[in-house]
């Protein structure tokens, strides 16, 4: 009972709920927001399920193709290789029952050319997640920066940034995106084909969805700048730059994390919509939305071709939404 370590050990036993199991954690110390959030998140079964699915999907996308692995190769079929011998030339549907679902083709075969749907779903997952993550990154960087500036400085800076947000929100984003991507030449900016299209899609989504992040960040900053610790820093002579990045910004990490988690599924949907409308990535590169467009013509003879990519989008978006909702509830200091 004489060493601080002992005290800590005693207190830990008395408090079964405490999460401070790490060495050097003092029992008297209050739990940080991160620790409270972590305990809450672990208790939220839906959020945990969402997180598990998200991690699984990200791993699948990373390890789908060489060089990192070869989940697709595991089933022996590349996403772009046709299997014309497995297709009934009369109906264009796979000859085998259930759309050709078998051990070799766990999700069946595409009508007409018999490409392996499993391989194409994995390949599409890469596109979906890549676009969604990068676009979210773009909008979070722009949104967080402008939101903090607007909220912290106020005055004309706030007016200009807020008006800018209004203008951006007044753009019919989907129309705009399909117009720009649809008018893209095959080669520009030193890139060509799908690389160019992906870059442009990422840029458009990111560049037009930053106001959603900026609004949240601005609101939070408005209240943070009135807090005592900011006054304290200022009275000690801290520069604006120091206050923004060292005092205000750490407090914004939680809301930014929550809203970027919630922005990712929106962006996944957005990419899928563009592909569905025929202005996403080009064939033969697989994309979930693009598969659904093709499924429109065959859903009577090959319903599996519609259901598999539809469910892929649904499960992915739902998982991110569950995780995002869970994070929000866990990180919200007002939540009971």
């Amino acid at each position, binding site marked *: 009972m004489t060493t601080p370590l002992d005290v800590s050990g005693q207190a830990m036993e008395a408090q079964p709920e405490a999460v401070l199991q790490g060495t050097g954690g003092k029992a008297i110390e209050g739990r940080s927001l991160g620790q409270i959030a972590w305990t809450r998140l672990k208790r939220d079964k839906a959020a945990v399920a969402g997180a598990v699915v998200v991690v699984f999907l990200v791993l699948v996308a990373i390890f789908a193709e060489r060089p990192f692995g070869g989940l697709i190769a595991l089933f022996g079929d590349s996403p772009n290789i046709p299997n014309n011998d497995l297709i009934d030339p009369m109906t264009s549907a796979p000859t085998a029952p259930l759309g050709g679902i078998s051990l070799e083709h766990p999700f069946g075969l595409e009508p007409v050319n018999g490409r392996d749907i499993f391989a194409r779903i994995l390949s599409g997952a890469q596109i979906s997640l890549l676009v969604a993550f990068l676009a979210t990154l773009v909008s979070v960087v722009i949104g967080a920066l402008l939101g903090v500036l607007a909220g912290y400085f106020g005055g004309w800076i706030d007016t200009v940034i807020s008006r800018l947000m*209004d*203008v951006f*929100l*007044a*753009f*019919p984003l*989907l*129309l*705009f995106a*399909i*117009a*720009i991507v*649809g*008018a893209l*030449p095959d080669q*520009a900016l030193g890139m060509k084909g799908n690389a160019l299209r992906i870059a442009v899609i990422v840029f458009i989504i990111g560049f037009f969805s930053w106001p959603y992040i900026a609004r949240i960040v601005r609101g939070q900053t408005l209240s943070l700048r009135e807090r005592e610790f900011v006054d304290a820093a200022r009275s000690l002579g801290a520069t604006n730059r120091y206050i923004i990045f060292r005092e205000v910004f750490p407090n914004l990490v939680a809301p930014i994390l929550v809203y970027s988690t919630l922005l990712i*599924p929106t962006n996944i*949907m957005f990419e*899928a*919509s563009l592909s*569905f*409308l*025929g*202005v996403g990535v080009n064939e033969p590169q697989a994309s979930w*939305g693009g598969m*659904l467009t093709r*499924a*429109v013509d065959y*859903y*009577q003879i090959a*319903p599996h071709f*519609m*259901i598999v990519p*539809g469910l892929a*989008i*649904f499960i992915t*978006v*739902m998982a991110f*939404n*569950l995780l995002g*909702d869970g994070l929000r509830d866990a990180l919200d200091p007002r939540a009971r």
Partner: protein
Amino acid sequence: MVAFIVRRVIAAVLMLAVVSAATFAIFFLIPRALGQTPEGMASRYVGRDATPEAIQGAVKRLHLDDPLIVQYGRFAKGIVAGEDYSLGPRKAECPAPCFGYSFNNNQPVWPTLLDRLPATMSLAAGAAILWLIAGVSIGIVSALRRGTALDRAAMTVALAGVSLPIYFTGLVSLSVFAYTLGIFPGGGTYTSISENPIAWFQALVLPWITLAFLYAALYARLTRAGMLETMGEDYIRTARAKGLKESTVVTKHALRATLTPILTIFGLDVGLLLGGAVLTESTFSIPGVGKLVIDAIRGNDLPVVLGVTMFAAFFIVLANLIVDILYAVVDPRVRLS
């Protein structure tokens, strides 16, 4: 109040000017930066195999060789005051609001747009009524019965609803209700209401439900969250403490505060949809504004794309304006200065 409205209207007009300039810049500046010449642009009007004279004529007639800023000025003037494309004997007057002519069929863009508007409006109006009623009532019931099996079930369905791509729900509903069960007609059967109201209704039932399902899910979540927040406010406790019936507390005190922001979002969503429900219209082949723009993009029809984008932006700005003004009327806390 009048000053407030005038100020908001001026702001809205300015906003449209900015949006139109940005839209114009993106559609004309970027192609030119990527190496598109005025002749290349003009050849889209007169067809690929046109004679050089015909192309030069089109360049002259459409002033495609002017600096872009002048072209934008002409574009903006065309919207406000109309434009005269006549050159020599060829008469081509384009009354305001003039968005130019389609590359593909040489029809003026504005009448084409107006022609497509009723289909989009039918779709948006029917769906909006459905989702507002369904979404808000589910949200309220869920909030009042918080934590019960009913609440959990409703919120699970709502979460699924916001996670389902609308074209997937549309396709599944088409395949189940139109093709397998044959209860409703399939896609591409839209008939205008003046032609045949019954066929109009039948063709729109599935699109309405599909579109409304997505939004109802969203609104149920929003309403529930808003309601729960309101029910935790001090004034609700005060109302209960002074002995009001629970039903009065809910309807007179809680609902009013919850519904105001919902109605704001509702206005904006309807405004957005009027500019074209692109995904729903293309899933069900409804000949609305959204289908028009998709077809225009496939056919590289720049003026139509530009026209629809401006049209959609107009509805968004208009909805913003109306919502702002209504908000000032409804919510006494909004300062008019």
